[in-house]
């Protein structure tokens, strides 16, 4: 796909815009693309990198991704220049289900680079008439991104671990007082577990991360155990059965 925009929006956090026909195929917020960072004749890094679709602009045929520069692959990705092309496979996986009717109130909980797909989700929910509350946790002020974007969609509570921006604390510190009919979360595993404990009696959808090989369901690298011990398969693949699951469908460990 063609890189139509690429900028650092927080400390080591990049917003990447990609234009191409794939945009038309995106069916749910929370799907991801699998990016080949190396050139076509390079073997470093060998594997593709999964990055969530943050939002999609079907008219402009444009996807927005947000990623953190951390290891070899994302460091390379950060060097990709506007105007050049990126080999992206997708859209992959099953994202967040957006109820087609019965608008109501939704809670969105995100942590770190788990936040991006929730932005696209929130836009869809708001479009459908939902009242959305966002609870977004970051390590520090320098890591915060998209605060304004979320704020225009609904109430937005920012937390940082060190208190340098928004409230000091973890996302789970503020969930108790909130009112919502369904919840959606994406972030590190400990956060998802804590959220799962807090959100009871209402549907909770979570997006998982797992190291991937193929990204399309063939290698079984990315499995998680199904919670139901009588489940026929016993597992789910994050890449194609997920990355989004109902919280009770899979074991978080």
């Amino acid at each position: 796909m063609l890189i139509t925009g690429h900028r650092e929006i927080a400390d080591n956090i990049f917003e990447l815009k990609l234009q191409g026909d794939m945009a038309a195929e995106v069916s749910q917020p929370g799907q991801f693309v699998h990016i080949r960072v190396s050139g076509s004749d390079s073997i470093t890094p060998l594997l593709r990198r999964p990055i969530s679709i943050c939002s999609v602009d079907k008219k402009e045929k444009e996807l927005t991704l947000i990623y953190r520069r951390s290891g070899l692959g994302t460091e390379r990705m950060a060097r990709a220049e506007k105007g050049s092309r990126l080999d992206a496979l997708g859209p992959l996986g099953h994202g967040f289900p957006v109820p087609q009717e019965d608008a109501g109130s939704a809670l969105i909980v995100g942590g770190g680079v788990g936040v991006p797909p929730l932005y696209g989700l929130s836009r869809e929910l708001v479009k459908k008439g939902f009242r959305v509350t966002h609870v977004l946790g970051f390590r520090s002020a320098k890591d915060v991104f998209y605060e304004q974007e979320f704020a225009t969609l609904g109430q937005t509570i920012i937390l940082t671990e060190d208190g340098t921006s928004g409230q000091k604390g973890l996302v789970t510190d503020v969930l108790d007082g909130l009112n919502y009919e369904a919840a959606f979360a994406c972030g590190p595993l400990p956060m998802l577990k804590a959220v799962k404990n807090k959100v009871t009696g209402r549907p909770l959808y979570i997006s998982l991360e797992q190291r991937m090989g193929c990204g399309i369901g063939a290698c079984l690298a990315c499995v998680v155990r199904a919670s139901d011990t009588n489940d026929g398969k016993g597992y789910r693949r994050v890449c194609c059965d997920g990355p989004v699951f109902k919280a009770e469908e899979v074991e978080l460990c």
Partner: protein
Amino acid sequence: MLEVHLPGLDLKNPVMPASGCFAFGAEYGRLYDLSKLGAIIIKAATLEPRFGNPTPRVAETPGGMLNAIGLQNPGADKIISQELPRLADYDVPIIANIAGSEMSDYVATAKKLSENPVVKALELNISCPNVKHGGIMFGTVPEVAAELTAKVKAVSKKPVYVKLSPNVTDIVAMAEAVEAAGADGLSMINTLLGMRIDLKTQKPVLANKTGGLSGPAIKPVAIRMVYEVSQKVKIPIIGMGGIQNADDVIEYFLAGASAVAIGTANFVDPFVCPKIIEQLPKKLEALHVTDINELVGRSWRPCVKKNASSLR
């Protein structure tokens, strides 16, 4: 020019996805027509279903990857009832990869799968580095490998290709032992045993600690082994390990392979198999080769075709 005939396998071309990298074809079948493939080697089947190892199951390494999937599969019966019927719709021979913990598992699984009409050959996986029980002796002790091969041959209705492990001192001894025991062909190589340690956690990246190294990094090891073994055995070799493009396929043929399998590269480019199949004829023409079978073992065959000097 790409047709290849091996025991039990009449292939329109010699390119097949490697076991464990293509599941049972459903996923890649959504991306392209599986009938384009020479054959499909399906994921390892065991007698009982297996869940496999904890995650993380893959790790990236320089020019390669480690995996420790641990033979996750739904078991032979479900493969027969749920996966093979779907594959029958394609015009492509299926090779069933068989694994187990005990000789009896292997034998029972081999019997079942070889009786299925969709399965055209078995690939006996005596080399999976990622399972705790069994496996290791089968793949590293020539006598044990030979015994297992003979037992499986005794029950199999289809030709048996034995998949060798590279983690041995003497690959030729392994190959000769299974050939003598009746193997119809060899698959080489399975993964090299490796490890990667995460500097942040200071522990191995893989939950299973060690894993199997695949990808471009291992190609020179595999080529060396195919080169050595093909000079010593009469049965054909399906070569694999690090194939990324049509040139790599030709390198395997020159080394002594009669067909090839592609694993890791499918993850890098899901269309790699059909792409290579499409590129091969052009590559062969450039080498003035009209039949890919001519290339088998050319790197060591003393007598090369008359027009070979013009190729240099």
